[in-house]
């Protein structure tokens, strides 16, 4: 094992070539679709400029402290020759829960990669389409006979919406697997690009790529920003995005959204930084590097995305289209904007090109932790590790690419990953604050630091950040879990969908009687309640009145679809649980074997060096 000459302890097999290299790699890991597509939507829907208050507070109390914790623990693990989350956690806390936490930090990035690669392919597809003029042709045919600007906007948005559903396979399951879809091939191209880069290693692959990709991404975004800021009447677009709605600050969900945005956008707490930081030399600064990477992420998010996306969407497509969801804004609104923007074909290609680069830099960071685990834990060569991970992620990505109707499998996977991310981050901060010890941790953070960290940060890391995270975890679970879990029950969902069809039929049946909403509700309850079995929630079809029975087929179709959706949700959860159990078993095996041995050797090296001194 290589030994660090200065400290006498084990050093990682591979190190970052330069400080700028690691900063750009970590920033590249954080800067992704969440910055350019999620942030603008979150801000404009949660008070505009007022959103920045909870956002900045969350950045200071949540984002920066967790990043510091992760960087420090990563470097500590690297000194013990560990580059994977399980190895790093076990070297810091050699107890059984550390294995579970390490396995979780391994699971999250790999599972996210399985659907993220599909988003990467969407960006690549849109970039190619803009570059070869496909969108221009599509919009030209859609806007031939439009009377005014408003109808042109409607026609363009409808066209981009239909295009998004068709090309990304949102209309039906298995759509991407039909012969006339190129998306599957693009996914394979993305797989190939990611794995070729990751195969080159940390310095020659990830660092080299991020060193040109990140500046290229920022330059592309700056070109678009200049174009946007020179548009006539841009003040109204900026006003729509940034004018504060102070009343929103009283709403707890706005605070939750802001802290969630910081948390998800910085990619903290679930093993990516832990892995990257383990390749930092034992005496190299982490405090300033961490702050620099976080700042670069904020630059891309607040300045580039904040000034481009929503202001332009408002300017060209109006308020209604500027308040979309992440995917709606990204893949329906933005292509629509490009129709109205002069030089839209060029700017569209540049925009989706930069999104593709951002997605690749993030993908690389999701793959490296698992590669490091296979190398450290089982002594596999890089080629073997890359091949195994390639097969595993391909197997995982296939069902997500198959069950694409309404982005169903993607949404369910994303939901569980988000929950696990908050759990993993909370556990990591607690380990840093209470197992390593916040004071010792901050001392370790200050080792070789180019930026002295004041001691009060220890108090924030020990008390404030975990409390903040626990509040987010509870509030987020309270807000989303009950509804989500009930949506996983196929029988209940089937019954609910059938009841919805019959409710609509009842409303249609009594339409002529001009009933009030309350009267109609009472009527619906009176007809349907006796038909629903209390135990099974099934509707007794034999008791249906004849005029309602003619809707039986529609109801059965809707019910089957809802039951199918609920079953897919269950399958996703089952898949994640099985994968986690497998990873825990592998982690346990590695910690008992190679990882445990390497840690002991590193400790012995450290002790002998201390004895010599």
């Amino acid at each position, binding site marked *: 094992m290589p030994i660090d000459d200065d400290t006498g302890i084990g050093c990682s097999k591979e190190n970052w070539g330069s400080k700028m290299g690691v900063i750009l790699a970590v920033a590249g890991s954080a800067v992704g679709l969440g910055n350019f597509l999620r942030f603008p939507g979150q801000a404009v829907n949660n008070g505009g400029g007022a959103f920045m208050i909870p956002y900045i507070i969350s950045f200071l109390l949540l984002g920066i402290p967790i990043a510091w914790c992760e960087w420090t623990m990563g470097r500590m693990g690297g000194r013990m020759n560990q580059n994977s989350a399980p190895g790093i956690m076990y070297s810091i806390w050699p107890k059984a829960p550390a294995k579970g936490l390490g396995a979780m930090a391994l699971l999250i990035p790999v599972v996210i990669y399985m659907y993220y690669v599909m988003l990467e392919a969407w960006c690549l597809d849109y970039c190619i389409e803009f570059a070869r003029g496909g969108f221009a042709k599509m919009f030209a045919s859609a806007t031939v006979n439009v009377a005014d600007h408003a109808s042109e906007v409607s026609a363009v948005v409808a066209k981009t919406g239909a295009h998004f559903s068709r090309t990304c396979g949102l209309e039906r399951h298995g759509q991407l697997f039909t012969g006339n879809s190129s998306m599957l091939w693009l996914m394979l191209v993305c797989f190939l690009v990611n794995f070729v880069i990751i195969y080159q290693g940390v310095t020659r692959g990830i660092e080299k790529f991020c060193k040109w990709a990140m500046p290229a991404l920022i330059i592309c975004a700056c070109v678009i920003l200049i174009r946007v800021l020179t*548009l006539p009447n841009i003040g*109204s677009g*900026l006003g729509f995005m940034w004018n504060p709605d102070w009343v929103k600050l009283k709403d707890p969900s706005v605070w939750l959204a802001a802290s969630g945005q910081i948390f998800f956008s910085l990619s903290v707490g679930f093993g990516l930084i832990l892995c990257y930081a383990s390749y930092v030399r034992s005496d190299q600064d982490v405090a300033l590097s961490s702050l620099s990477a976080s*700042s*670069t992420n904020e630059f891309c998010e607040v*300045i580039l995305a*904040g000034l481009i996306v929503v202001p332009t969407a408002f300017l060209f497509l*109006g308020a209604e289209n500027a308040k979309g969801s992440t995917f709606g804004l990204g893949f329906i609104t933005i292509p629509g904007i490009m129709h109205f923007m*002069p030089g839209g074909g060029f700017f569209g290609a540049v925009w989706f090109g930069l999104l593709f680069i951002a997605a690749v830099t993030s993908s690389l960071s999701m793959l490296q932790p698992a590669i490091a685990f296979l190398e450290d834990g089982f002594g596999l060569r890089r080629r073997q590790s890359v091949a195994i991970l390639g097969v595993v992620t391909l197997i995982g990505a296939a069902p997500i690419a198959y069950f694409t109707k309404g982005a169903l499998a993607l949404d369910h996977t994303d939901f569980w990953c988000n929950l696990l991310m908050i759990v993993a981050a909370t556990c990591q901060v607690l380990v840093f604050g209470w197992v390593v010890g916040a004071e010792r941790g901050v001392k370790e953070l200050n080792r070789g630091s180019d*930026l002295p960290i004041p001691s009060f940060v220890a108090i924030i890391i020990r008390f404030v950040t975990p409390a903040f995270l626990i509040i987010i975890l509870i509030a987020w679970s309270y807000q989303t879990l009950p509804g989500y879990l009930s949506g996983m029950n196929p029988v209940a969902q089937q019954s609910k969908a059938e009841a919805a069809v019959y409710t609509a039929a009842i409303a249609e049946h009594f339409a002529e009687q001009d009933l009030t909403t309350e009267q109609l509700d009472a009527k619906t309850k009176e007809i349907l309640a006796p038909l629903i079995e209390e135990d099974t929630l099934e509707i007794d079809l034999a008791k249906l009145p004849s005029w309602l029975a003619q809707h039986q087929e529609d109801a059965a179709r809707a019910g089957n679809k809802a039951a199918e959706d609920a079953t897919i949700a269950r399958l996703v959860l089952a898949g994640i649980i099985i994968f986690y159990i497998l990873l825990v078993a592998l982690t346990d095996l590695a910690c008992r074997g190679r990882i445990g041995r390497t840690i002991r050797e590193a400790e012995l090296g450290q002790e002998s060096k201390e004895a010599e001194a």
Partner: protein
Amino acid sequence: MTISTCLVAQTTTDTTVQLTTGGAAIMAGSIVLVCGLCLFCLLRILRGESDSSG
């Protein structure tokens, strides 16, 4: 396409929203804060590098 249509984009007629003083202040504040932080980090990195090479 004429030069004028290249330069002047067709936008919505919604002029009811304009950037208010509060909005401009928050936008400018956010830009200054983020750019300031980036600049601070960059200067510290450059200073650290010149110290280590010196």
